[in-house]
Each structure stands twice: as C-alpha cells, then as structure tokens.
C-alpha cells in the first residue's frame, strides 16, 4: 500500500528531514539528531508535525452514549473544553486503540486516534454505533502540531490573545492563534515536557507552522521527528499502541486501570471488572539498565536465574539520563518495583532493575 504524505511533507523535506514510512504515512523521523531534538523539547521548545493522527467527530444527542459504550474512561465526567485519555476495549480482553476524547459541548466530541489504527478504529466505532450518533472521519482535513517543551507557552503566547496559562492540563480552547481562527489549542502532549497541541485545518497549516517558527527563533525552536517523540514518551513511561499495548493486552495489565472506569458499562467491561477482581496475571513494568546496554523491542526479560519471564515492549537509550530504559510485561510476583532482572541484549545478560515511571 502506498504511504500517505502529510500536507506539510514538502516543508519537512526542505528542512532536511529523514522521512520514513510509519503507520501508513511518510513521516519525518529526524531532522538533525535524535538527542539534540530530544533535549530541545526537554529544555526548550520543539514542534512535531503529527498530522498523521486520526480525528473523528461525534455529534448529536447520542454522541455521549456512543463514546461511553466504546471507551473505557468515563466521558460523562468531562466538561466543555476538557479532554480525557481513554482506550477502546475489544471483546477479547484487549485494546483496539488508545485515544483522546475532547468534549466541545454535550452534543459535540472529537476522538483523536493513532494513525496506524484510523481505519480499524473507524470501522469499530461505526459498527458499535447502534444509537446512531452522527459520525464523521475528519482525519484528512486537519493537521496537528505538537508544540512541546517548557518554552512552548512563551512562543505561542506571543501569537495569540488567548490566555494560554489559563488552559489547564488536558483542557483546550478553540480560538485564534497566529491570526488563524478556529484552532483547537489543547494543553496535551506525548512528551511530559509541557506545551500544547494545535489542530488546524490543512489550508492554514503551513501559515501556522511558519509563524510558530518565526516567533520561535529567539527561543531556538526546532522541528522534532518521531525518533525523539519515542524517546520522550518512553522517559515518561507513556504506552505506545502496537508496542506496549495492543489487541491482546488488557488495559489493567498495561497500567491503564486509571482510565478503566467501572462506574459505567462499556464494551467488555464485565470481563474487565472480573479481571480486576481476580487480579491480572501479568503486568507492564518499567526498568532501567544498570551499566551499559540498550534494551530494544522483543529482547527477552529474565529473572536472576536466567529464566525468560517476558519480553521488552519498548526500549531505548534515555537521552536525559544517558542510560538504557524500557518497558515490558512480566508475571505478577516478578513485577514489584526494585526487583532485579536481566535483559538479554544480543546474547549478553545485562542486569536491570524494575522502577517507577516516569523515569525522570
């Protein structure tokens, strides 16, 4: 299948980005250096073009009923202008996707889903829409720029009248920014570095991008690729769908119990409630390598006797900590923080220790 180009593809090419196929799209993975980009976001400000992400509008009097049915978190708790991290459980105990639910008003919601799952999620949500909420897939209409880092607010505040400091974490405001009306300014992100995500119509996207970079020059703003996005999210212990959670892992196993609310019923909620009551058999843990070595996807996790107890689901060198960090599933009993384990890195058993997230 041909990979889709995002609207600002030419801009990234001109910036010298290395472009790779990702989730059905051609995406900038690196502009200069993974480390430099990572640290720019941690310490300053950087912009990701994550326009590959999918957006579904759910509208009408039955919008909330549909969202409550397909998502695990309790969207009834949302107020206008608030967003919520959630997931779409399947019937087999696993997860169709993780997502963000935005509430504009009681009859208008936006679901933001992973790029690689747009088609699967669309079919899933549509198939479960027996209450006939109005559904539209607007993924191709919007660009999404994540302006992240401790200086993100300063950069964006200089091009908008909207009081950005007043937008609380996981809240959003639809307003004018860089002279462009109707931008969804969302205090969310996938980096733990603070900042905003901006949803903009394709037609105005390049103008917005350019104005952010013009204004950001004095803050040494940088374009950031998917490489640094992965190391930034992993330092925070955020799950990546397809790696750390998938069709087979339960939200309870994946550490997403906090977005699995049994105050309402949803797809597979009875089975998940039972799993919660009985206790899960395995759990997603985080670990850091003691000494040298970089864990990577699929490397075996062993106990100190050298018995394989799990697999690494995500791993990298942490540019902030300068050591190897990762996540993976291990059986209950082996999962406690402080437990010493071994990661098999290219035929070598390297000591590691189970730790809390975020890693920083």
């Amino acid at each position, binding site marked *: 299948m041909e990979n889709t180009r995002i609207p600002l593809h030419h801009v990234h090419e001109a910036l010298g980005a*290395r472009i790779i196929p990702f989730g059905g799209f051609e995406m900038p993975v690196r502009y200069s250096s*993974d*480390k430099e980009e990572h640290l720019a976001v941690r310490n300053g400000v950087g912009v990701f073009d994550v326009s590959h992400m999918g957006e579904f509008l759910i509208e009408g009097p039955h919008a909330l009923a549909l969202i409550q049915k397909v998502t695990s978190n309790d969207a009834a708790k949302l107020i206008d202008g608030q967003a919520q991290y959630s997931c779409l459980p399947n019937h087999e105990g696993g997860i169709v996707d993780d997502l963000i639910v935005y509430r504009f008003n009681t009859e208008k919601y936006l679901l933001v889903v992973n790029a690689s799952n747009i088609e699967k999620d669309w079919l899933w949500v549509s198939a479960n829409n027996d209450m006939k909420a109005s559904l539209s897939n607007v993924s191709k209409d919007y660009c999404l720029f994540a302006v992240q880092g401790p200086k993100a607010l300063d950069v964006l505040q200089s091009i908008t009248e909207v009081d950005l400091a007043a937008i609380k974490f996981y809240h959003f405001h639809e307003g004018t920014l860089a002279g462009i009306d109707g931008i969804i300014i969302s205090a969310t992100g996938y980096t733990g570095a603070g900042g905003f995500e901006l949803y903009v119509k394709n037609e105005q996207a390049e103008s917005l991008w350019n104005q952010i970079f013009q204004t950001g020059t004095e803050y040494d703003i940088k374009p950031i690729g998917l*490489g640094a996005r992965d*190391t930034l999210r992993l330092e925070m212990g955020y799950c990546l769908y397809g790696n750390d959670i998938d069709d087979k892992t339960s939200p309870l196993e994946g550490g997403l119990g906090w977005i699995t609310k049994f105050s309402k019923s949803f797809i597979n909620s009875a089975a998940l409630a039972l799993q919660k009551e009985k206790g899960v058999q395995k759990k997603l843990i985080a670990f850091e390598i003691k000494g*040298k070595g*970089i864990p990577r996807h699929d490397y075996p996790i062993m106990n100190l006797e050298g018995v394989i107890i799990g697999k690494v689901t995500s791993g990298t*060198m942490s540019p902030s900590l300068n050591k190897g960090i990762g996540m993976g599933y291990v059986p209950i009993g082996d999962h406690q923080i402080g437990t010493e384990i071994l990661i098999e890195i*290219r035929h070598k058993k390297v000591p590691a220790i189970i730790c809390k997230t975020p890693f920083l």
Partner: protein
Amino acid sequence: MNIPSQLFYTKDHEWVKIEGDIATVGITDFAQGELGDIVYIEIETIGETFSAEEVFGSVEAVKTVSDLMMPVSGEILSLNEALESTPELINTDPYEAGWLVKIKVEDQGDHLLSAEDYRVLIGG
C-alpha cells in the same frame, strides 16, 4: 554525501583503508546518517581472527543497533580508544577520528567496492 575516493567500501557500509597488511576500518558517512546518534561501540574481539563478513562487534545508536561485519579476513589488532568516551566521533568525523578498528589483513578478498561503486550502491 562524503565518500572519499582513496578508500575501499563494503555493501555493509563500512570503509577500509589498506596500508601494507594493516586495514583501518570504520563506518561510512551514509551509515552514520542512517543510524543517527551513536551511543557506544561494542567490540570485545581484540586479538580474534575472523573471515570476511563475520560479525566482530556492534554499534548502538539511540534508535537502533547494527552489527559490524569484517570487511576483510584477518585479526582485530586494536580499536579506537577515543570512542569509549566520545562515540559521537563516528557521527562527526566518520572517516578520520571516528575510525573503529585496525585489522591485520590475511585475505583482502575481491569483494571490496571502489568509492564510485559504493556511491552507486547507496543511490547517491
């Protein structure tokens, strides 16, 4: 793309400089660009003898890891000690300060590529 004309290359994106029976080996500018930030080099095979194309170590970058393959048959004599503290030399100066190992050549073989052949290989 920087591909010095006086060096030989392999399809595994290494360069080789041959002086008498000693080969100095590194990875190409193209390879370092593909790998991204190099974090460390793992070569624990000093004094060992390998055939061409056997794995003698690995190079770990932030996002990926890659095997290092013998460009010629021979014995690993020494490695670039500077890489222990400054592995980024491979990114910044792949053909000079970022060299990896020196090999005592037993058999050079006939598979090494010229700079021109290598340029064609990487589509440059």
